[in-house]
């Protein structure tokens, strides 16, 4: 991806099964920027990830999401992906009988970026090596029999091959040991550059020791309530989330 594009989330409201989860969330991820979005359980982090990616179970009830200036709300999930958006799933599903190599190859083809076999294979093996993985994984069926760590590595492998403009990592660190977090983070860091904007969604500060964010946001009850830098991560590491909840509840019109 030569040119980066921005993801603009503008006063987004969304619900799932009739329950409102996102309540006017605004966030802009510019080209090349890495943003961390932190928040306690139930704050709406995964809803945001799924809503952005176009999961049919989540419906937008207000606001807008723009990718490169164009609204994506009328686009299907696959159209959004082809427009440059990538979601690394918290719980990636299995695709029985489809090898990792074939899956990625088919996805590139759908994006009109099919590579000649030799070139594809070379690049795939490079990215597998980058993730400190055995090249045999290319022939394994997608996520079938994968450990939790392998599934997350597979997400980053796909991200590395598909070269999106905007990547959303939905709790990629959850359930991983420190070694796996390091491997996955190194993979993400190697992809950083002016063409890629990243949103790292996480409950824990651990992954942010390895992926250094340019901006940090804290989400509570479907909105961003604090934005800043590294110091927010340190505060959450020290004090947890209670202080944010209390500050929001004390603010006029907050805590809804």
């Amino acid at each position: 991806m030569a040119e980066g594009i921005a993801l603009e989330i503008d006063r987004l409201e969304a619900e799932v099964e009739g329950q409102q989860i996102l309540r006017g969330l605004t966030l802009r991820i510019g080209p090349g920027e890495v943003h961390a979005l932190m928040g306690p359980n139930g704050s709406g982090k995964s809803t945001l990830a799924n809503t952005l990616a176009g999961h049919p179970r989540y419906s937008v009830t207000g606001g807008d999401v723009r990718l490169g200036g164009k609204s994506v709300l009328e686009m299907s999930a696959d159209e959004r992906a082809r427009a440059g958006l990538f979601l690394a799933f918290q719980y990636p599903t299995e695709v029985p009988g489809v090898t990792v190599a074939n899956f990625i190859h088919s996805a590139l083809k759908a994006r009109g970026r099919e590579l000649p076999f030799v070139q594809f294979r070379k690049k795939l093996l490079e990215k597998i090596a980058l993730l400190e993985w055995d090249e045999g994984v290319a022939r394994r069926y997608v996520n079938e029999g994968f450990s939790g760590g392998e599934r997350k590595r597979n997400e980053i492998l796909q991200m590395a091959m598909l070269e999106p403009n905007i990547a959303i990592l939905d709790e990629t660190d959850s359930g991983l040991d420190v070694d796996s977090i390091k491997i996955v983070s190194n993979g993400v860091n190697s992809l950083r550059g002016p063409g890629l904007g990243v949103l790292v969604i996480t409950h824990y500060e651990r992954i942010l020791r390895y992926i250094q964010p340019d901006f940090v946001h804290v989400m509570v009850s479907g909105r961003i309530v604090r934005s800043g830098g590294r110091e927010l991560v340190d505060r959450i590491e020290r004090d947890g989330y209670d202080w944010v909840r209390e500050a929001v509840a004390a603010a006029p019109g907050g805590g809804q």
Partner: protein
Amino acid sequence: MVSTTAELESYIARLDEPDWLLTSRRTAAAVEATLDAPHWDRTDASRLEPAGFALGGGGTVDVRLPEAARAQGVSAAGLAELSRLDPGRVERHLGRLVPAGAGRHEARNLAAHHGCLIHVPAGVVVAEPVEVVYRLEGGQFHPRTVVVLERGAEVTVLQRCAGGPDADAPPALVTAVVEAELGDGAHLRFIELQQWGEGAAVYATRQAMLGRDAHVQWLLGEIGGGTVRSSTTSVLEGAGSEALALLAFFAGGRQHLDLAATLRHHGPHTNGLLLAKGVLAGTARAVYRGTSDIRRGAKGSDSQQKENTLHLGHGVRSDVIPALYIDENDLQAGHAATTGKLDPEQLFYMQSRGLPVREAERLIVHGFFAPLLERVPLEAVRQELAALVDAKIDRGI
């Protein structure tokens, strides 16, 4: 049914063939006239009645015998040609495993057959597949493939069944018979890629008879046909004989597939495995009947069945009817079946990589068949079957 019998007799009278063959045809026609029309549960047998389908010129037979196999003494030719060249062999084997008395359609097929006979002499191992192509044109078509493997012979037969009307064109009728005799220690791999037009009503009977330590492997790709009634039976006669039946079916639109696979164990220490995988889309309907029939004396035998169906839409229906008939104590037998729906989370996952729904479904269907096809060591056949699946998806399922 006087009218169809009269039509059949006048068809036979027009053939220029040796007297013994004409007599065999007339005998089969007479047997047909004595049999009642079949009646099946779940499948409307009237759709497969010959009345109303023109007889004569229904299709073509093309047999391709590799040059190396010919040099090894293998013969493969159309029945009409072989009836002159080697009448004794045709007379010995034609209708031996699937005689007229087997049923109305089998009788009609024997009376009006086009077909071929493949003979592999004892101990001859054929490297390249022998190919048979049946092409349906219209009306009635009655192909019959007779395969004879002498002791220790090995061959792969690749049979392609294609052509015929689309779903909206005037319909055609096919009865297709396969008779395979395997001598002691013989190995047969029989592959059929069935892609008749969806305007064809199809009745198929395949039967293999196995000698001691003989092996048969069926790979059946049932893709085409409008109404299909298909039955494949492995008779494990000889001790230590083994059958593997791999059945891949894929139905869409208004297709109705009624597929049966049977393992009949007679000999001791015989092994059988039926693996069926089917995908249904549109308003397709499938009936799958897997049967293990273990006769007294089949001591130490093992008969297993596994069946998986994947539903791509809500308008489809499938019935799985497993049966175990056991007349022996010392044996192992088992059955497992699953039916799955397209998982919306899986679809979303694939879409989120940029795959449109149709391409995601394409991968899911190929992936579903993959574990079955991995058992077929012929890359070209796997690719051909994959191409048939792709073509069907491209037409819209």
